[in-house]
């Protein structure tokens, strides 16, 4: 069967380009049903984006939901892995409130999950694959990367309340240095602590540009460990994908409940919102009784509709 190119929509072409890439890297297609039991989501609310879930009652009385997310279904379906890794990719629609209009819509996502024995190498490879995905879509892209544990350990070292930490993280996420200094004054941080948090908020650049500053911020063992992981992952990713433009940016690390290590986001020039996001989520597996590692990312292919190819 030959399919003429002109009958494919832009979104379909994008999806097929990604599926070809993922397949060529040894990932297997994962297909799933559109519906899941609501319980899967209600028990993992902090893993899901804000904004609710579309539910309905099946003929047998079970409460079902239109899938707001793909990763939870894949994790649920993953058996205990003895030392190995499971590599899957998906191309599915999800139903969630989102985008800039905050309304429910059906959104196609194409992504990968790597579950099992995940170390720095696997992490670096997935970050490289994220960069390659943007390239495969013909985008001039940037991958921004962060480590949730680094910012969290910096704030833990301040010995302040959870509410204060969360307020500081909000300012870091907005790169709002004046706002951050205001909060620091209210909760009586020292000048050194305030400057450290402000440096983290405004930091942006390649690993080469930011490495020295990051090392100077290290104040405890947890920060040292997190930074080591971040540096090693970026180095592996840069070797695996030599054209990749990877920048360190701590304004990403907001979702501390769910992500447990490296997090990253992909942006394309000319599109106002990120087109890719992912990270390590070992915590979710632990909570679902599967003590192993996991990392993945998803590409929001519908966001590319407005991309103007040169």
């Amino acid at each position, binding site marked *: 069967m030959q399919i003429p190119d002109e009958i494919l929509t832009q979104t379909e072409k994008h999806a097929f380009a990604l599926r070809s890439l993922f397949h060529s890297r040894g990932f297997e297609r994962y297909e799933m049903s559109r519906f899941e039991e609501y319980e899967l989501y209600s028990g993992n609310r902090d893993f899901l984006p804000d904004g609710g879930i579309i539910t309905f009652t099946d003929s047998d009385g079970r409460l079902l939901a239109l899938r707001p997310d793909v990763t939870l279904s894949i994790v649920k379906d993953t058996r205990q892995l003895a030392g190995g890794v499971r590599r899957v990719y998906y191309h599915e629609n999800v139903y969630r409130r989102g985008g*800039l209009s905050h309304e429910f819509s059906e959104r196609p996502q194409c992504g990968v999950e790597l579950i099992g024995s995940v170390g720095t190498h696997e992490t670096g490879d997935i970050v490289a694959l994220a960069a390659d995905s943007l390239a495969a879509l013909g985008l001039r892209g940037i991958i*921004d990367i962060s480590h949730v544990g680094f910012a969290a350990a910096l704030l833990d070292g301040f010995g302040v309340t959870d509410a204060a930490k969360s307020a500081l993280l909000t300012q870091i996420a907005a790169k709002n240095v004046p706002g951050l200094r205001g909060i620091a004054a209210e909760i009586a941080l020292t000048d050194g602590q305030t400057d450290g948090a402000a440096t983290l908020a405004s930091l942006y650049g390649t690993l080469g540009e930011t490495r020295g500053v990051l090392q100077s911020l290290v104040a405890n063992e947890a920060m040292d460990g997190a930074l080591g992981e971040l540096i090693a992952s970026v180095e592996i990713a840069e070797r695996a994908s030599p054209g990749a433009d990877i920048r360190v940016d701590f*304004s990403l690390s907001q979702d501390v409940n769910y992500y447990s290590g490296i997090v990253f986001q992909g942006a*394309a020039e000319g599109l*106002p919102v*990120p087109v890719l996001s992912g990270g390590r989520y070992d915590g979710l597996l632990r909570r679902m009784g599967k003590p192993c590692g996991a990392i993945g990312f998803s590409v929001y292919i519908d966001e590319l509709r407005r991309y103007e190819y040169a």
Partner: protein
Amino acid sequence: MLDVAIQKGRIGEDVYAILEKAGYGCADILSPSRKLVFEDEEHGVRYFWVRPSDVAIYVERGAADVGIAGSDVLAESRPNVYELLDLGVGKCRICVAAKSGFADPGGVLRVATKFTQIAKAYYAKRSREIDVIHLYGSIELAPLLGLSDVIVDLVETGNTLRENGLEVVETISDVSARLIANKISYKFKHAELTKLVSAVSERLGDA
């Protein structure tokens, strides 16, 4: 080229004066005309005049790389943008005000305001149930006519309140103009944006 959304009116003009001193001037921008877009290739900048409450929308959706918006608007609409500088102009306060000598009756408090999110968040923090009455203007009228118990509104000098027999009960937060940036522009135009931010913050130091 940086696209800058700037609010129409006096605060926008004050902000433009800072940008001009920082090396981001644009010929003709202050000339009386109905033009909305002003470009200056030499300084690498293009300005749009927009409504104050629209600045954050232009920036969040990437129609402008940077913008200058009041912290009141940002607190109310919570756009997903970077907030890089406090420009220290357009200063005022968001306050709770009521008729002079107002005694809180307890129970559900009726609050008239344009800033419904700010009002809800403020009273939620104090575990106080409120009935929010969303108005678009002449907020001061509401308590005078018995439409509301209090108002949540911007207060600059307090003259409008006084002339209407109202007074400030509490201050919710201080307000000033902020330099905001689209999160993706920040990455792709990082060098240009960093230069703008540092040039502007040097000018603020002068003032």
